[in-house]
């Protein structure tokens, strides 16, 4: 069973006016089979946490540790982290002009599984996953995220998660910008991966509506670069009803 352990993580971002502290000591453990929801106001540092785990070069780690099954994640390069089993569904997935989804996915899967997938199996696997997420088969030949709507990008992120089948998936506002039908389709995709019990999910969100489909085992409230409260799904309802101000201790 995989587990990611984040301890005392502090992170800075380099800005034009010099380094700025964003994460101020994050402690969080996510195990395979669990769903953790992370909720917090705009600018509290949720995406920073996600990027820091994935190894984005813009963020520098100033303290603390992140381990995946005991391995030091922070010592790994971005691609090594992915191959070790970390996955990040991005809040704003990036366009890659001239690179088709099918080429991109095949290259990614080959890297992650360590060998090129059998072509016939692969085509079938891709088709099925796309159908499950109600993605038009023609998207396979489109360039990665180029001209995709917000919702199409999010579906494509979950498509990648399903094919990669990571040990730990961080989903950064995957529910934002989805219409009600898309929300259901995407949630079902997440649940399919969760159902295998091999993946731990950290779901970053602003809204409880996705939590009606993807049931969290734990809810964490994020504020000013750290987790300020932990609880069950009732905490999410409390946030929706009363906002974040209640968690701010003067």
């Amino acid at each position, binding site marked *: 069973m995989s587990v990611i352990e984040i301890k005392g993580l502090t992170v800075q971002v380099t800005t034009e006016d010099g380094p700025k502290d964003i994460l101020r000591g994050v402690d969080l453990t996510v195990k395979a089979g669990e769903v953790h929801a992370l909720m917090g106001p705009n600018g509290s540092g949720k995406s920073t946490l996600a990027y820091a785990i994935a190894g984005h070069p813009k963020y520098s780690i100033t303290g603390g540790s992140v381990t995946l099954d005991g391995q030091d994640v922070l010592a790994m390069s*971005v691609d090594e982290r992915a191959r070790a089993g970390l996955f990040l569904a991005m809040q704003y997935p990036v366009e*890659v002009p*001239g690179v088709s989804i099918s080429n991109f996915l095949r*290259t990614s899967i080959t*890297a*992650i599984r360590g060998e090129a997938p059998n072509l016939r199996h692969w085509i079938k696997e891709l088709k099925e996953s796309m159908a499950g997420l109600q993605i038009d088969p023609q998207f396979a030949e489109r360039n990665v995220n180029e001209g995709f709507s917000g919702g199409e990008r999010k579906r494509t992120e979950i498509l990648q998660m399903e094919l990669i089948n990571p040990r730990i998936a961080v989903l950064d506002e995957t529910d934002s910008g989805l219409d009600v039908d898309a929300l259901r389709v995407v949630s079902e995709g997440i649940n399919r991966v969760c159902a295998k019990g091999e993946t731990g999910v950290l779901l970053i969100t602003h809204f409880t509506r996705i939590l009606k489909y993807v049931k969290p085992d734990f809810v964490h409230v994020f504020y000013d670069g750290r987790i300020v409260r932990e609880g069950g799904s009732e905490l999410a309802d409390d946030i929706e009803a009363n906002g974040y101000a209640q968690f701010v201790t003067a």
Partner: protein
Amino acid sequence: MTAVTEHIEREVAIVPPKDHTPVIRSLDPSDFPTPTSRDEEFRFTPMAKLRDLHKGDVPTTGGMAIAVNKVPGATFELSAAKTGERQGFTDKIAAGAWASLDSISTLTISADAQLEESVVVSIVGSGAVSYGQLDINVGKFAKAVVIVDHIGDATYAGNIDINVADGASVCVVSLQDWDAKAVHLAQHRITLGRDSSVKHVSITLGGEVVRILPSVVYTAPGGQAELLGLYFAGAGQHAEHRLFVDHSEANCRSNVVYKGALDGADAHTVWVGDVLIRANAVGTDTYEINRNLVLSGGGRADSVPNLEIETGEIVGAGHASTTGRFDDEQLFYLQSRGITPDEARKLVLRGFFEDLLSQIGVPEINDRVRNSIETRLGGHI
């Protein structure tokens, strides 16, 4: 490190008509002074590496091997005689080539012929100094794709004159896939008849110095020119394209897209796009764009779009130029999916050229171009 993207958007000014006839037009190299790097047209060119071709009088030391496949509707012949009318060239190099060559290659596409297969003119150098003149004459309402494939090693000044008759449509791809030491200087002069269209493609991948000057002249209304280019310059390579589109007739269109990548110390690319819309060329529609991707340190990409407009009664005119490095966000995205940094850069580089290859629309060259670039990168990127 963030991506550096430099935009050059120049002012488009409506200027009073002036006399654009070049000072000298001649077939005789002795009519021209020897160019130097102080001349505007040569300011980016490494004169010392031209092996004196710019002096217009270097003797031939051998020929190029020319082979052409047989395609119904197309005929190819070599002739020793410099007969017929030919417009004077505009520089000493091109005139020198004309004066020194010993045979002219003529590819004729019969009127009304719709070629089902590409004509491939393969020009193979074996290290000698040589000169060439290729005429591509496309008959009325004909349709053809011609690939001029330059390989091997050479010190070569070879011009191509492309004459497109009324209603005809031709795609000419000039592939410069030379060995590392080649020097290749050429004018590609395109003359367009009424309602005719040309797609001219220059692909420069190899050679120490390659300098291609495509130009378009419209002789009647309704002409369309698409000028596409793809270039790669590795360490020590100079790849230069200078374009001139002369809108002298009404209701003509031109569209220029050039994309290049540079890799390694002293890699130098030059793109100059001169577009002139003369006072009588009302209804003109023109756009030109140049994009450069600098892969590793030390390369230099010069990019100069130049639009001169003498009439305001046009459909559109614009240009854009960007030079940048790899986008870190794209690389991060790919790497976050397990793809190694090298592989990620390769994907982005391929992607950079991919839409251009589909715009070129000659599938048989795609793999050749992709593989040539990857081979020339030598595994590192």
